[in-house]
């Protein structure tokens, strides 16, 4: 990037990005007419949404059932994925046939319904999902639904039983759950842990995850039900910040920003004893720190409820194979496939009907000392408030994570709060 084209680079970067991205991706075969014509469908994801890096068996199965369909998955990191999607929607070309959108981002795309296929017109049976889950990807009047829900991020607390034992804390998951009825108790337990912790082991991975966990018990966090930005005035947000900052200042954080190489190493090296653990995190831990099998266990989340993450699969209307793409989207979000993804990766089904099925209910995670994942995650969702998400919820969340990271690096919490507020104003307010 440096030195490329001198004066042109700065401006060219903007437009060049649009042009370049417009040239990549996208299927080019098949037509709307014949349902059996050969067709290549591209799926853009930002992680283990439907597959693991070494396991694409779900796609293989679909290709077996539909010999004319070939599926190509493209992965990129969370931020890049959503930025590219926005760029390609703006450019009107280049989007994949199926695009994943995370729940914190989806509100920003609901305002652009004309750019997506409306699943309300596609004969989708939406009975599997709650109204609240569907509402997040729908226009306010409910006439357009831009995405089908895939998984949902029920919250639990994953912990390292071996580190707990070394620090003299109980290791049994029920006893551990009783240690922290509230997040205050969780931070207090952290102090207990640190007083006897093994060398270099901290209580949690990053302040941002404690912050997210605390807010998981709230209905309104960054936006209110009317869609107004209330982050600066919301006492619940400030309380969550203060509690997290206090925990950081007492040395509980390993200060490993999420999804960085340092964070991945942290899992492998046992640099932290607990992590706010949505269901999909199970798959992440498993693929990142395979050697820690059996050292982990899963307890209830402080406060008892919460939701972090979850995704929707969309079909941009610019695609040439929207009919075939809609079929694939329907199939991928059908309860049978959702159950398989839960067992294989850990992504918890958003389809409530599956929660009572024995494949889900009785599922225990071998990697996590056979913790009854099929019971723990729905329990945290049962009383979870339906959180309001706004167009920039995702960006606001990562702004707080960055600000808490500056506290972890020794910064003053009040200054960091003030900076976060002005950054949020620029990103989500009048800016």
């Amino acid at each position: 990037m440096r030195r490329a084209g001198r004066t042109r680079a700065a401006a060219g970067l903007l437009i060049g990005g649009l042009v370049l991205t417009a040239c990549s991706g996208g299927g080019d075969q098949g037509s709307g007419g014949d349902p059996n014509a050969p067709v290549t469908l591209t799926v853009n994801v930002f992680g283990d949404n439907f597959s693991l890096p070494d396991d694409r068996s779900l796609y293989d199965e679909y290709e077996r059932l539909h010999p004319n369909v070939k599926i190509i998955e493209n992965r990129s990191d969370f931020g890049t994925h959503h930025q590219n999607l926005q760029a390609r929607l703006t450019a009107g070309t280049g989007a994949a046939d199926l695009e994943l959108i995370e729940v914190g981002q989806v509100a920003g795309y609901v305002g652009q319904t004309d750019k997506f296929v409306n699943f309300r017109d596609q004969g989708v049976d939406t009975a599997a999902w709650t109204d609240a889950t569907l509402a997040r990807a729908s226009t306010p009047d409910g006439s357009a639904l831009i995405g089908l829900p895939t998984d949902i991020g029920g919250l639990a607390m994953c912990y390292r039983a071996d580190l707990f034992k070394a620090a003299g804390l109980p290791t049994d998951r029920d006893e551990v759950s009783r240690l922290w009825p509230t997040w205050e108790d969780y931070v207090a337990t952290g102090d207990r842990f640190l007083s006897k912790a093994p060398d270099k082991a901290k209580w949690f991975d990053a302040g941002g995850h404690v912050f997210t966990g605390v807010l998981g018990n709230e209905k309104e966090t960054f936006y209110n039900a009317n869609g107004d930005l209330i982050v600066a005035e919301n006492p619940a947000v400030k309380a969550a910040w203060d509690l997290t900052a206090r925990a950081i200042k007492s040395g509980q954080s390993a200060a490993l920003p999420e999804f960085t190489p340092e964070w991945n190493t942290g899992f492998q090296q046992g640099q932290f004893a607990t992590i706010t653990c949505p269901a999909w995190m199970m798959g992440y831990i498993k693929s990142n720190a395979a050697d820690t099998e059996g050292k982990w266990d899963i307890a209830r989340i402080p406060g008892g409820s919460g939701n972090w993450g979850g995704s929707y699969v969309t079909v941009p209307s610019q695609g040439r194979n929207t009919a075939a793409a809609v079929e694939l989207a329907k199939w991928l979000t059908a309860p049978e496939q959702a159950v398989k993804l839960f067992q294989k990766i850990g992504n918890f089904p958003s389809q409530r009907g599956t929660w009572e099925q024995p494949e889900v209910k009785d599922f225990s995670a071998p990697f996590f000392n056979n913790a009854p994942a099929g019971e723990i995650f729905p329990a945290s969702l049962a009383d979870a408030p339906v959180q309001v998400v706004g167009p920039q919820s995702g960006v606001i969340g990562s702004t707080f994570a960055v600000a808490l990271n500056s506290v972890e690096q020794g910064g003053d919490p009040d200054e960091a709060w003030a900076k976060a507020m002005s950054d949020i104003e620029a990103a989500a307010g009048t800016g």
Partner: protein
Amino acid sequence: MSRTALREPSSVDRRRLAEPSDRRAVWRSRLYRWDVKGSPYAYVAPFFLLFGVFGVLPLAYTALISTTAWNTRRPGSEDVSVGLDNYSALLGDDNFWNALVNTLGIGVFATVPQLLFALGIAHLLNYKLRGRLALRMGVLVPYVTSVAAVALIFNQIFARDFGLLNWLLSPFTDAPIDWRASTAASWFAVSAMVTWHWTGYNALIYLAAMQTIPYELYESAAIDGAGKWRQFWSITIPSLRPTIIFTVIVSTVGALQLFAEPFLFDTTRNHNGGSERQFQTVVLYLYQQFWTNGRYGYGAAIAWTLFVITVVIVLINFLVVRRIRSSE
């Protein structure tokens, strides 16, 4: 030129061609003249065509966007003109000034050692060495390595917890250095990456220039009793002056547009350039506002401001160079 002049129709020919029976010849000669006059323009046209499409057009379009309130969160905002509001907002934006200071700071940190190292390396490579070609190719290896690969290695070197550099420094420091936490440390790390990447490239340019210096100059200097050091200062450096000026200008422009290294050094992918924007450069800030925050209008204003700043700095460079030349 002389060949084409010879083949121009002479006055005798012209008189003859004027006769109606030779219409075809007239036509041919006209084509011929057009060919001579027009073809140079036709040959350079592809460049200007491409430059127009990929250079001028984006530049103009960016200027246009920068006067709108375009924001992905507000459908229809692309048609709302705000005049120069984005620019006035930018002047009052602390984060922009912070990014500008970072850019200039990292620019100095990266460019000065880079050019000094390059000069030294080029001087050494100019000696008659065994395996000279291999060595010369060798200094270019960091340059041909992709920045992403360089960043991958440097991120390991500058990692806080299990980093190579902290391991080497551990006997001398109380606690491992968090290279992304402080401004100075992060500037050092990013500058190291830039220096690593570009030193070989500049060394090769210097080497090429050094080889044009007549050997007799060194010989007669040696006869006059000048040592190696004196020869370097009194012959090599003055002869390289135009080349040094060229590399300074190119490096300055490059430094102002520094993006890939800080982008990759910020492993959180928030494009914040550190938790408190410790190493966020102007282009990285532009990228964050444009992509992460969806502020197309504001991002375009940053791009144009950077463009103007770059032009101004290059002009200053140019004037300084001219003054040096005229004082010689």
